């Protein structure tokens, strides 16, 4: 794209973002300045101190819960680790505040990493459970290890850095930290790691197939959230100069969670809003003193039912409703660099499957299958329902481990690799039941596809234009900035194909791409597949629709009861007696009634 063509939406977006950043910095400067100048009562100082340090911890929850979709119920424990590091560090060990703060942040992040590494290979409920356990153990230790933690009496006389002895400059430090953390968390959302987190949240399986290392992504999210918890806690201890174990109990973890949910768990602004509200509300609602936690509980249920995206999410949702994203006419789009083999006559084997089996207990879903997919070809796999087609695709992809046999792509043995590693070697895929990242925009979905391992497109701008090119290839470039949910089923399928194409796959696996499409959409799909073929992309397609398959495939393999029963050109295969028997039923011997 030439410099001259970079007008229109791109430019206006960047102007808007510069303005947003400028006003953010201005707001930060003003409020920090105000704290230093405007006289505040000790009481309001304390409130602000609490709100700003809590908000930093709640921002951690935005990362782990809002971005990565993992439920952590130990944010108060990490907050406590940070707080106790500063408390004991500056009193019992005579460390400087800054050293103790860094130690606290590192300890919290370390604890988070260890917990995450042990737990996050498993599904959703486990992290919630393990974090509660960790929270309980930490509370027990803080209360009972009196010789070290000073037990239930807590720690007094916590020191601040020499130049921030007064409360107001210290509050300024807390506010500055909050502004910085909120900015970084907001930025994280549109980085590679942040997008990977959101992909894991929206559809973990699809994320791994497009090349996201889901385990590492989840561990990273949890570690960042623990780190922010520790940071908030360290500042909190400095701010209040006295702490005790009950400030870091499970109940406080729940308070942190409620703050995140109330404000809106998917945006940093929501975190700050929720924290502010829940710190001020109890002050305003003093008459609720006895039952305010019960009200928290009820609020959590009501938020989940009526306002799952919190106040901020609700407000932005309303804004979207009144100011919807309109289809835009995109600037000139460079063609998608699909393959580097256009025009070559190379028809060597790209994917070799040897003696592949997958047994589920006694059921042989795949039984000794051999396959060879040639470069620059469209190879179809057909077979009746339950013949093992999708299982075969899942084994090729690494979602399911084979019982025995081997899979090689361009001579590289994939058999033991995880799905995201296979994506890194150029194996792309779509799903029969569409798996997109539902809360992200169309183009973000495609960008995640372009960000697969071993696929370097360039900086953010290059990445965006690459993704736009992939969308343009399937005809959806004008709708790049819309949400997935506003697209029709057929268009969602095209987005999924664009997501796979954006990763420049060496081999594209399509799992029943025609399923659920109407006639017009199916014709469009056939045209698309023909264009892909014309660009020299190698495709392995599963479908029921013989009409579709015979229009695009030059080679067909037939699967029945987990075995390959035929292999050849479409005409050969369709005449094969075993194939006819599998599809139309066995011809009865003469003479039988």
């Amino acid at each position, binding site marked *: 794209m030439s410099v001259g063509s970079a007008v229109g939406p791109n430019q206006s977006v960047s102007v808007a973002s510069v303005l947003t950043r400028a006003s953010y910095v201005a707001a930060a400067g003003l409020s920090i300045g105000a704290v230093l100048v405007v006289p505040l009562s000790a009481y309001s100082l304390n409130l602000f101190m609490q709100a700003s340090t809590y908000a930093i911890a709640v921002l951690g929850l935005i990362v782990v819960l809002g971005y990565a979709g993992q439920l952590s119920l130990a944010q108060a424990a990490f907050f406590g680790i940070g707080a106790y590091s500063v408390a004991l560090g500056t009193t019992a060990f005579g460390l400087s505040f800054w050293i103790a703060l860094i130690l606290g942040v590192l300890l919290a992040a370390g604890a988070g990493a260890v917990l995450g590494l042990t737990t996050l290979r498993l599904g959703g409920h486990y992290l919630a459970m393990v974090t509660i356990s960790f929270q309980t153990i930490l509370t027990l230790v803080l209360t009972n290890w009196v010789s070290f933690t000073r037990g239930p009496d807590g720690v007094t006389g916590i020191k601040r850095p020499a130049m921030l002895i007064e409360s107001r400059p210290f509050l300024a430090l807390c506010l500055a930290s909050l502004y910085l953390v909120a900015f970084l968390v907001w930025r994280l959302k549109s980085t590679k790691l942040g997008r990977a987190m959101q992909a894991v949240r929206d559809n973990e399986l699809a994320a791994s197939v497009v090349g996201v290392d889901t385990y590492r992504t989840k561990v990273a999210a949890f570690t960042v959230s623990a780190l922010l918890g520790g940071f908030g806690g360290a500042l909190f201890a400095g701010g209040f100069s006295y702490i005790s174990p009950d400030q870091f109990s499970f109940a406080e973890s729940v308070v942190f969670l409620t703050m995140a949910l109330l404000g809106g768990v998917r945006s940093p602004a929501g975190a700050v809003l929720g924290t502010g509200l829940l710190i001020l509300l109890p002050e305003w609602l003093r008459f609720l003193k006895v039952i305010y*936690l019960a009200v928290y509980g*009820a609020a959590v249920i009501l938020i989940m039912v009526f306002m799952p995206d919190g106040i901020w999410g609700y407000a932005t949702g309303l804004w979207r409703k009144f100011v919807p994203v309109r289809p835009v006419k995109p600037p000139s789009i460079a063609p998608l660099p699909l393959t580097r083999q256009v025009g070559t006559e190379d028809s060597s084997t790209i994917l070799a499957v040897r003696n592949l089996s997958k047994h589920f207990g006694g059921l042989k879903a795949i039984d000794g299958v051999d396959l060879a997919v040639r470069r620059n070809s469209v190879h179809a796999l057909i077979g009746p329902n339950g013949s093992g087609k999708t299982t075969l*695709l899942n084994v090729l992809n690494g979602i399911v481990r084979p019982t025995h046999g081997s899979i090689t792509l361009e001579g590289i043995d994939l058999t033991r690799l995880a799905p995201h590693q296979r994506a890194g070697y150029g194996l792309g895929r779509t799903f029969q039941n569409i798996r997109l990242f539902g809360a992200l925009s169309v183009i973000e979905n495609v960008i995640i596809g372009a960000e697969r391992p071993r696929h370097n497109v360039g900086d953010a701008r290059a990445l965006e234009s690459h993704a736009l090119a992939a969308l343009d290839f399937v005809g959806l470039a004008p709708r790049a900035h819309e949400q997935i949910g506003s697209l029709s089923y057929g268009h969602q399928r095209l987005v999924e194909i664009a997501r796979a194409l954006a990763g420049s796959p060496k081999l594209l696996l399509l799992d029943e791409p025609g399923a659920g499409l109407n006639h017009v959409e199916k014709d469009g799909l056939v045209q698309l597949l023909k264009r892909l073929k014309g660009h020299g992309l190698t495709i392995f397609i599963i479908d029921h629709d013989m009409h579709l398959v015979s229009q695009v495939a030059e080679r067909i393999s037939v699967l029945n009861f987990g075995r390959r029963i035929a292999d050849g050109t479409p005409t050969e295969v369709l005449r094969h007696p075993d194939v006819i028997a599998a599809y139309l039923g066995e011809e009865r011997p003469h003479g039988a009634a």
Partner: protein
Amino acid sequence: MGFNLQLLFTGVGVGSIYALVALGFVLIYRATNVVNFAQGDFAMLGAFAMVVLAIDFELPYGLSIIITLVLLVGFGALFNLGVYYPLRRRSFLPVIISTIGASILLENGVLAAYGPRPQSLPSMIAVPGFSIGEVFFDTQYVVILVVTVVMVALQYIFFERTLIGKKMQATSQDKEMASLLGIPVALMIMITFMYSALLGGLAGVLVAPVLFVTVGMGSSIALKAFAASIIGGFGDVTGAIIGGLALGVIETFGAAYVSVPYKDAFAFLVLFVFLLLRPQGIFGERIAEKA
């Protein structure tokens, strides 16, 4: 030897409480794919209902138990309607968070109504216990054990031998298929919640004379029940029972031989070890998500 046998007996008694609550967890998990974080609070409600009925209202003990269990069954229905049903079509995360909200609401609601002072409830049977050899058999623990065994047996018969039990199993395995076959899925889930609340309430009634009745008692039992079900193999009924018993025994021996204040930590340490070495638990299988 006698001391160890004594510990074993107590451990199994405590463990069977965990097992009862874990059973409730597993049932709801299998029916809805959601972990109910308020399961332990069903036990807390059961215990408080007993205190109110048997002590404050001075009703006969047996009658109090019956009223308590009826109340809990009704509460299970209410819980389903308020906490699960509005969110049934959403992913598991909102539902889990909603049950956590319910747990906070229940504990603090009872706290506001009854205050923080621990209550105590006398045992069902006046005889404190009997000795065989060196081992003293506390009556309440004997009752707990017997009731647990009976409940497990009843549950087995219910699920394997009755039509409604089979329908509930069908619902838990595949809701869509079950509803296509004409099984009223919403009703089956309603019954599941009512039954789990009954199990939780029963655990509360049984454990109240052994422990102090406090608002936090439920969640501490529930955490261990949860750990028990992971150790046993999540979602597996036998696993929940074995896991519960194992945890009770480990905890009792840990408290006797290692440290009393850290008693509650042993369950979680065992849990961590399992998550590291055998995350699928004793009976569990690893099941991959379908593509």
